[in-house]
């Protein structure tokens, strides 16, 4: 079909998101009185779902798939729509939908929610662009397009010191990282003389004196990626940002924004700096990722194990999961058949993670909506009053810990399998150790919800409201987390196909 429709329609998922955001902004500016939280949440949700359905349709129809004429390149090769792009666009769209729906209840008494919805949608647009970016220039622009709204979103509660502090730290670290990233790009440009991935790749094969320059540039690009994915050593913003930001924003950042960082990484490092060529030039970025992955997962999980606040624990756990996903890049080896498997597993993990982690943060959002505290003790005995939500939370926790019968089990174990297949036993072993630790702190949440008794009999009286939209989002995420186990086949197939297209 993509031959029938004009090529630009391939970008329609991104366009849909952007247009929805603009529309909200317009309505909000022209008729400030007409706006209602519900209607705008509805509109933005519809926009996100529309883009999701289009994406899914494309995937089913095989747009950009090798069978249908391969990837569609636009704008002089600066943009490229392929399975990888669609796969991640699907993640972004679904997370966005969940987040905006949840936000409806979260911001029920906020004076100006409109800004939130449009900012979210703009950030989502930027992610969608990241997914299709085929030039370092587009990558940087799209990255900023994701970052700038995110800063604002984190600091969205202007009167809340936590939110502001989080916003500041996120912004400062982010600005620094993007500067580093940009300088890295400039060095690569200096070394290769192009920004289009394909041309960069061919230039990398013939680097001579400038190998060092390109190497430094690549490492700096690694840094930029590490910032987006909240990986060591660019992770410092994450605990504070996730903790201080409004919970839906934390969900959005920790799921979608992280995935955005990974799509960049996957594409740039496979298409612009192919492993073989880079190694020939003495630039072993896989080693860099291996180190980063190892440190990241260990730091994230061990720090998460000793947190008192659930939200901050989730923040660290999300750092740990970044470490897992990085295995997808770290465990690559030149010309190995296992590459597709491991990178595909990483993608699948990010998809599943999109649901289970978003769900977890949305549960925290619900807790904040109820106005109960943030620590494990405050969550004690919640299951008595909110069994459904708590069951969903238990599902998220066990799935994050990688236990069946939930999707997190498959994605995590396939990731380890991939690492083992490529001979990275030590990485898989480290991952195993970490997931044991993670089992400990995830089960702490379940223990608080189901096993512990409330501190005071009146502790649970705060649960007076039933935030419907939040419930809907959480339950949907939970159902998705469960159903993705039996339905894992298509997911992993799509992911491996997408990965295969990169090598």
């Amino acid at each position: 079909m993509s031959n029938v429709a004009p090529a630009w329609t391939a970008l329609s998922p991104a366009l849909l998101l952007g247009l929805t955001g603009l529309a909200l902004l317009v309505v909000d500016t022209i008729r400030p009185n007409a706006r209602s939280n519900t209607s705008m949440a509805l509109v933005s949700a519809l926009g996100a779902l529309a883009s999701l359905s289009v994406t899914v349709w494309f995937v089913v129809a095989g747009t950009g798939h090798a069978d249908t004429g391969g990837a569609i390149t636009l704008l002089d090769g600066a943009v490229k729509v392929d399975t990888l792009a669609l796969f991640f666009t699907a993640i972004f769209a679904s997370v966005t939908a969940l987040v905006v729906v949840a936000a409806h209840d979260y911001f029920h008494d906020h004076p100006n929610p409109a800004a939130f919805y449009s900012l979210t949608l703009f950030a989502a647009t930027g992610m969608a662009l990241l997914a299709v970016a085929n030039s370092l220039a587009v990558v940087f622009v799209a990255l900023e397009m994701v970052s700038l709204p995110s800063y604002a979103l984190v600091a969205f509660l202007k009167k809340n010191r936590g939110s502001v502090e989080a916003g500041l730290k996120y912004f400062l670290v982010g600005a620094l990282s993007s500067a580093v990233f940009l300088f890295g790009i400039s060095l690569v440009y200096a070394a290769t003389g192009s920004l289009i991935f394909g041309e960069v790749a061919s230039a990398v094969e013939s680097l001579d004196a400038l190998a060092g320059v390109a190497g430094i540039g690549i490492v700096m690009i690694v840094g930029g990626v590490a910032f987006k994915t909240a990986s060591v050593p660019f992770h410092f913003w994450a605990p504070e940002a996730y903790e201080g930001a409004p919970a839906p924003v934390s969900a959005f950042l920790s799921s979608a924004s992280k995935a955005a960082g990974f799509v960049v990484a996957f594409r740039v490092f496979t298409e612009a700096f192919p492993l073989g060529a880079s190694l020939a030039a003495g630039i072993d970025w896989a080693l860099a990722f291996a180190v980063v992955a190892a440190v990241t997962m260990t730091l994230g999980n061990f720090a998460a194990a000793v947190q008192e606040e659930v939200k901050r624990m989730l923040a660290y756990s999300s750092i740990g999961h970044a470490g897992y996903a990085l295995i997808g890049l770290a465990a690559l080896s030149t010309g190995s058949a296992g590459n597709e498997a491991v990178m595909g597993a990483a993608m699948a993990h990010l998809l599943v993670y999109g649901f289970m982690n978003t769900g977890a943060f949305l549960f925290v959002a619900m807790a904040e909506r109820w106005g109960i505290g943030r620590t494990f003790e405050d969550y004690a005995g919640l299951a008595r009053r909110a069994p459904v939500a708590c069951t969903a939370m238990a599902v998220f926790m066990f799935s994050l810990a990688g236990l069946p019968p939930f999707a997190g089990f498959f994605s995590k174990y396939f990731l380890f399998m991939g690492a083992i297949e490529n001979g990275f036993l030590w990485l898989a072993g480290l991952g195993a150790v970490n997931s044991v630790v993670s089992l400990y702190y995830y089960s702490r949440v379940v223990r608080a919800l189901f096993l512990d008794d409330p501190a005071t009999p009146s502790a649970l009286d705060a649960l007076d409201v039933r935030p419907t939209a939040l419930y809907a989002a959480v339950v949907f995420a939970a159902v998705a987390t469960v159903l993705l186990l039996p339905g894992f086949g298509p997911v992993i197939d799509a992911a491996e196909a997408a990965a295969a297209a990169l090598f």
Partner: protein
Amino acid sequence: MVDAFAYVPAVVLLPFFSFLVALGAGKYLPKGGAFGGVAATAGSFLLSLWVAATVAGGRAYNETLYTWAAGDQFELTFGALIDPLSALMLVIVTLVALLVHVFSLGYMNDEGETGLPRYYAGLGLFTASMLGFVVADNLLMAFMFFELVGLCSYLLIGFHFREPGPPSAAKKAFLVTRFGDYFFLVGVVAVFATFGTAAFAGEGSFPALAEAALAGSGDVWTPGGLGVETWFTVVGLLVLGGVVGKSAQFPLHTWLPDAMEGPTPVSALIHAATMVAAGVYLVARMYGFYALTPTTLAVIAFIGGFTALFAATMGVVKDELKQVLAYSTISQYGYMMLALGAGGYVAAVFHLTTHAFFKALLFLGAGSVIIAMHHNEDMWDMGGLKAKMPVTYYTFLAGSLALAGIFPFAGFWSKDEVLYEALVHGLNEPLLLGGYVMGLLAVPVTAFYTFRMVFLTFHGEPRSATARDPEPVRWNVKGPLTVLGSLAVVTGFINMVPVQKVLGLEGIDYLHRWLDNEWGGIDGLSSHHYADLGPYSSGYIGGGEVPTVLVGAAVSLGLALAGLGLAWRLYNVASPTEHTAKLGGIKDVLYNNYYLDELQVWIAYRTEDVAGGADTFDQGIIDGVVNGVSSVSLLGGNRVRRIQTGLVTQYATMLTLGLIALLVVLGVNGGWFL
């Protein structure tokens, strides 16, 4: 005509059904299900007689009846082996069991005991297990029923579970015998591993295979290339462990005196015909194997002789009626072991038979006395019961004369033959001779404590109110006593070897001919076959067989009479007094049973200490490591989280340092800075 052997399973199953009936419906039946038990044992008794008659008719039976586990490696089966030995044993067991059931009507029902269904269920199962053991055609089946017998003894000894004493005695009985059975079980497993079968009789039986292997015409597995004979000795000794436990031989005899906590009829059953007899019967059953290993035989003989003397000495100082009988039991089984060890297969079975009757008699008599004395067992509170309860007295006297080995009572003949065998075979076997000497020394001691008991109980003046006016006993007590009493007198005549030898009368050694398959039996299970296998040659004193017989008999009889006389002098007076003081220091040792119980208690406590140590180690070290790992990880987590200082400038610094570190690593790795 119908074949008696087809009913062999019924012999075993009838008491088992009485067990089921008593257990299930006992409380709805009259007498707590007693009649069921009586009927069942009576039935088994009649069937046994029929089976014995059939054997006498010249036939034998050795069939596999049920396959327990049909592996290719081994076939584990149940079956029945009916030869003269088992037929004889069947009759003894069923008869004694029947009489005990009847006696129980008087001892338990008339005394208004509670929990009678449990009691009769126990008796039924006990009898059934013993019968199953008797007919067993292979070692595994024998072991199984051997263990079941142990279970029943536990249940019956601990019958009065509401009191503190019986449960602990029951535990001790089971534990000590279990300890012996451990070796037995290892032996069974070893027999399977060695021969691939555990059948007692027939071509493929393990004694036959062992014989062949020793003859060099067969090949068997031995561990680590061990010599065949050595290995057989080891196996024999392992199985012997079970025998020593069940037959209460030194050093595993300590459970038996405690077992007196059980109801007296149970004691009669345990000691006369079932549990304790099982050990000796087992050796007799697989004698074809033991006969092959002289060392084992010597050990058996020595243990037997030692136990005979050792237990007898302890019997001398006991005050309770049943205690004396308990030690006499240990001692008498010592004689049987001595006989078996000395190659006196027939003598052992003979003594087993006579002892079954007169010991059952003595226990039931004691039971009758205990009824009369309102369950006071202290002999020093009795006296003068002779006039009050004549039937009990005269039967008890018969039993005592038999036990003391006084001519012409049953015990005399059997004990005399035991000692004779030990003597003639022991003259050139030092170890065996040692056994003989100790056995001989035990004779006067036995006579002494037996008649000390008789005189203290029945003679002299009543020493307590109850003794002056004892409670009368009914037919169901006197009946069994009469039967057993007459048996105690006449059983000896089934095997008057000495008379035959001295007077040259042919054919009055019925038991010899019976066990020699003269009327019928299974090849390889006959006494002369065992004699051929046996390592012993006979030696005689005084030139020839007859003098040896006479001398042996005269010596033992003389010693017995001496012992009796001493007891007469000391205790057959109006108001006897304790003479134990004369023993001096030995007295305490004897009272405390040579401190063997203390030793075992000490061992038990030490074991518990070791266990406590293990527990501490487990909780402290092993579990400590497990918990340690988790606390260490949490500690690490606490260190890691401190990196997040909250100061954004420090974040920038660490970020930069991290980036530089990456640059250095890759740069050095990739050699950019060259």
